[in-house]
Every structure is written in C-alpha cells, then in structure tokens.
C-alpha cells in the first residue's frame, strides 16, 4: 500500500503491507510523523484531501475498502471496523448527553426502536464499568478516564470485528491507563474482536499485543512476534527506540536514545531512510533502499536493513 499526501508530495506511508487476523492484536509503533496514524485513517477510508492514496489496496474480509461506495462505507465503518482516536477525550460531542451519542450510533446502523437502542446503550456502558445513571451526563461531567471508557463503549456497541485504537491512553495517567487496558482485554476475550493498536509506548505495546510492526518515515522497518521483537530487536531503529525508555527496574545507566531528528519526508535520501541517524550505516545503506525481508528462516520476522540481511549486525 502506497499513500501520498499532497503538501509537496510527502510520502507518509510507503509500500506498507500488513495483515490482521481475526481476534489478533497488532501493534504499530514509531515516533510522530512516521505514518502510523495515517495508515489507520486509510484503513477506514477516512482520509481526505490533501491526502491521496496512490497505490495498493485495503482488503477487509476480501472486499476492497478503497473501492466501496458511500453506502457500503457507511455499513463498513463502525459496524465492522470502529476507531478510537488519539484525542478520544475530545471525540465526544460536548452538547449532547453520552446516552444520546450511544443511541445515535445504534439507530444509524440498525433497524431498532428507540427503546431497544437505549437498552443496548445502557448495557454497553455497564460493560465498560459506567453506571446506567450516567446516560444523562454530558461529556464535561466525566473525568478523562470515564470519557475514554465511553468512547470505547461507542466503538464496541455494534460488535465490530476490528477496532483501530490510535494512542487510546496517551492522555491518561498510568493507573487509569492500566485499568482501561485490563478492561479492554476482558471485553476482547468476550467478543473476540481484533485490535490495531497504535502507540509510541513500546512498553505498553509489548505487554498487550501479539505482533508489532515498527514504522519509520512511512516505511515498515521491522515486523514480528511482539515478545520476540521486544527481546531481540534486529533493526537499528527498533533497538534505538527500545533504548529510549529508561527502565524502572533494570540497571540505571546513561541512555543515548536515537541521535538526530526525524526525517523530513519532503527531502528523502536515495538509500535507507534511517541512514542519517543510524550508528552502523555502511556504503550500501546510502545508495540502495533495503527491502523488508525475512531474515531468518525459523522465525516470521521481517526486517528492512542491509546489515541484518547480510548478517553483519546481530
């Protein structure tokens, strides 16, 4: 899949391929501007000008999301794939009650009476641990954590098969974050939906996902089983990213993080996009773009790095 924004043609997502299986949790990691949110928007066909998809396809149960008519899209969005956005705190309409917002979703998608829709709304709020009496509350009367729970309830109400979560807990405290993630997992076990989890917090991601894809400057640089990827990162960027987090229990040492600044997508080099910040950059990296390939026949890990491919780096 190839996806281009029009402000001077910055290639925000560049030839990224990703499969999500039913009931699976896939994480997308990377710093701001690496294209992970753009990819999420494209999956729901929510992108708008100046964003433009120039190649590739997005298949949901065999059907291309990009070729759907408006009518089909309405049926697809929310009923099959719903989204929890980065600013979920602000995703709720401030002037109508949360009950109404839940009911609206049901009424828009299903042929039910108002009473039935209300029942569904109450049941879903209770699922995420919010008491039915809160149906008549306005968003500003709820705390950030509760608002986030409401957004999750709305995302779940039509029992979609895929939930795209774009930094769902970034704005929340760690304790609230932990509560919400635990609850989400209980619901996931109950309803069996798949999650595409987008975040820059690799620690959280390693705990909850099955597979992780690491993106840098619009390209997927490493993709693999999350436990394995966290313990044996192969791509220099993944290793740098993992070293950017001071640990709370491990040894205390001066960490260097990743030197330099994120790549300007309007001015990309010929070879590997990570070359300017890579400590192991060789001649081949400057001239030739590495491919995302399996580096080890035993594991399904894919890495896009010349040095790993040749077995020079670990």
């Amino acid at each position, binding site marked *: 899949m190839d996806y281009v924004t029009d402000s001077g043609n910055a290639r925000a997502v560049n030839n990224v391929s990703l499969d999500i299986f039913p009931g699976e949790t896939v994480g997308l990691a990377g*710093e*701001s*501007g690496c294209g992970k949110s753009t990819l999420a928007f494209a999956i729901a066909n929510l992108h708008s000008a100046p964003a433009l998809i120039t190649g590739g396809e997005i298949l949901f149960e065999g059907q291309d999301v990009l070729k759907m008519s408006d009518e089909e899209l309405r049926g697809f969005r929310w009923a099959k794939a719903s989204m929890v956005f980065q600013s979920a705190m602000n995703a709720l309409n401030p002037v109508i009650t949360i009950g109404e917002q839940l009911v609206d979703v049901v009424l828009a998608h299903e042929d039910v009476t108002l009473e039935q829709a209300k029942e569904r709304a109450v049941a879903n709020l209770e699922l995420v641990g919010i008491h039915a009496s809160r149906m008549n509350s306005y968003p500003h009367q709820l705390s*950030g*954590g509760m608002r986030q729970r409401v957004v999750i309830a709305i995302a779940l109400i039509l029992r979609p098969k895929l939930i795209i979560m774009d930094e769902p807990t970034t704005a929340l*405290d*760690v*304790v*609230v*974050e*932990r*509560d919400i*993630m635990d609850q989400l*997992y209980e619901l996931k076990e109950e309803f069996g939906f798949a999650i595409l989890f987008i975040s*820059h*917090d*690799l*620690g*959280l*991601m*390693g*705990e*909850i996902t099955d597979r992780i894809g690491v993106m840098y400057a619009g390209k997927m640089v490493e993709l693999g089983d999350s*436990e394995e990827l*966290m*313990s044996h990162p192969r791509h220099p960027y993944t290793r*740098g*990213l*993992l070293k*950017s*987090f*001071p*640990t*709370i*229990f491990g040894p*205390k040492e*001066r*960490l*260097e*993080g*990743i*030197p330099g*600044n*994120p790549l300007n997508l309007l001015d990309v080099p010929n070879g590997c996009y990570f070359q300017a910040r890579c400590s192991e950059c060789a001649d081949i990296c400057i001239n030739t773009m590495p491919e995302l390939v399996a580096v080890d026949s035993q594991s399904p890990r894919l890495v896009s790095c010349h040095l790993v491919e040749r077995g020079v780096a670990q």
Partner: protein
Amino acid sequence: MNQPVNLEEFPVNRESRSEQLLQVEDLVIDFALDNALFKRQYMRAVNGVSFDIRAGEALAIVGESGSGKSTCARALTRLYPPTAGKLKLNGRDINDKADLMSQSELAKQVQMIFQDPFGSLNPVHTIRHHLYRPIKIHQPHLKGAALEAYMLEMLEKVGLTPAQQTADKYPHELSGGQRQRVAIARAVATGARFILADEPISMLDVSIRLGILNLMADMKEEGIGFLYITHDIATARYFAERTAVMYVGHMVEWGESDSVTQQPRHPYTQLLLSAVPEVGRKRGAQKSCATTGNQIPLWKPDSKGCPFVSRCPKVSERCSNEMPGVTQVAEDHFVRCFEVE
C-alpha cells in the same frame, strides 16, 4: 528593596555544589471553590509539603493529574500565593512582605520550562529575539557583540548548531525537540540557578525525549538545581537524584530515587509502579495493583485522615481519622503510612 546586581555571579556560579538552593517548608495552598462572600468553600490543593533542593541536584515530583505537583511549581514562581508555609530561595523567603523580592529578582534565579514547546515560543519572533529578551533584562551588562556572542554560546550549549543559522529561524521552522531546547536555552540564559521543569518531555517524540533529559542532566553538572515534574516515574528515576510521590496534595513518600522506586513502601507508590508498562513484561504479570476503588477525594481544609483511604488495599480504621506521621525507612527515604510504622 532591589539589591545591586552582582555581575560576577553570572552566567553560572560553579563553586556552589552542596549549597542549599531552595527550601519549601510546610507549604499549603487553598483554592476557592466558589465566590461566596461568607462561608466560602475551599479546596486544599497542596497540604503540608516540605522539600529542599540543593545546587546541582534534581528533585522529581511524581503523581497523577490533580495531585498538586504543578501547583507546587507555580507557587515557587509566585504565581500562586501560599496559604501557609514558607518558600525560601538561598535562605530568603520569597513571599516575605518586609523584605519583598522583586519579580525580576526572582525570575533571574528561578525559570520555568513548560510542557508545550509549541505554545511557549512566540511564532512571530525569531529564536534570536526569544533569547535576547531575557539576556537584556537579566544581564544588562551584556551589549552589542557580547550579547550576540553570549546568545550564540547559549544555543550551542543546548546543542542547537550551527547556532548562527538557528538564531535566525522562526519557531515553526524547528522541530518539537529543538523548540524545547530553545526553551531551555532561554531559561539558562538568564543565569538562573534553579529551573522548574513541568513535564518538559511528555509532548515530545519518544526518540528525542532522552536527548532533552540528558541535556538537563548536563545543566545539573553546572550547578543548576531542577524541580522535575512528571507522571512518568521511570524518567524520574533516570534523571533525578531524589523523588517525591504526591497524592491529592500530600507528599506520601520521598527520598533517594532508587530507594523509592526499588523498595516502594507506600501503597500508592506501589500502585503507581505496578501500573507502569515495562518493556519485556507480559500482560497480567503484575496483578498486584489491586485497589479498592478509584475515587479520588476532593481535599478540603477540614478533611481528616490519609488521602489514600478510599483506594488503599491496606486501609485500617485509624487511617480515616488521622494523617500518618513521617516514618524514616532508610537513610534518605521517608513514608507517611501507618502500615510502615
């Protein structure tokens, strides 16, 4: 009255490592909840907080939103008047009416770095302008070429090279991390001895957060004291020598960072630590963070007991009536909890 400026003292006095820079004694800050003329309701945002910071040392204040950590920092810049307690800078009370420190005198010594590097720089001025202003105000002896040279030195110090080009840029031409570096350069340029960093890295990209933390650590080497406010207890341990954990306006556990994070004694600190996602840890591996609810109380001046009562798994009858006293559990590690007593 204004005292004459000692020019030799700036930019930074390097011979001052162990000197007590800042002392906070029993700080209490109340906010009015309504505008009633009589029987006005107050909430107590900060209650009985005491700490001190030495030159070249960082103290991290950790806690969730609403725990009063930013309020403490703002009191130190005199943005909020304390209801009770003393704030002393170099032994001098900053709120003492009889010997009132002028705002510029205070600003020369205490500077702030804010969370949002996009909001804290003026978009219509160059970086040079942002740095000239504080230097002209606080180091008026620098003029012309000396001013320019000092400004460039500050930019180089924070790693913004080539400094000459950076100085001519506007904030929108810089990345978030570079902007935060400008904010740090601006704070240091005044000759400040003490910097309040309120969540300085939480809005930055993960890959450049460490660069900013390491830069601040270098500043520490030069004798600048830091108050580092964060909700990320892992970076608190990484950057600060000492850590204080706050809950609903109270300091519940404080001391040497390693001791507080590795052997947490207060149930709230234990809860915070168990909630931190850790690379390499698998989901469900930390089920010890059981709490008995998530009701965070609104603390009033007449509230009694320990603020953590409503969530504490080890709560006893005594806890709701009395605030636990301070228990020393290690050489530099203090806890307020009956369980530890």
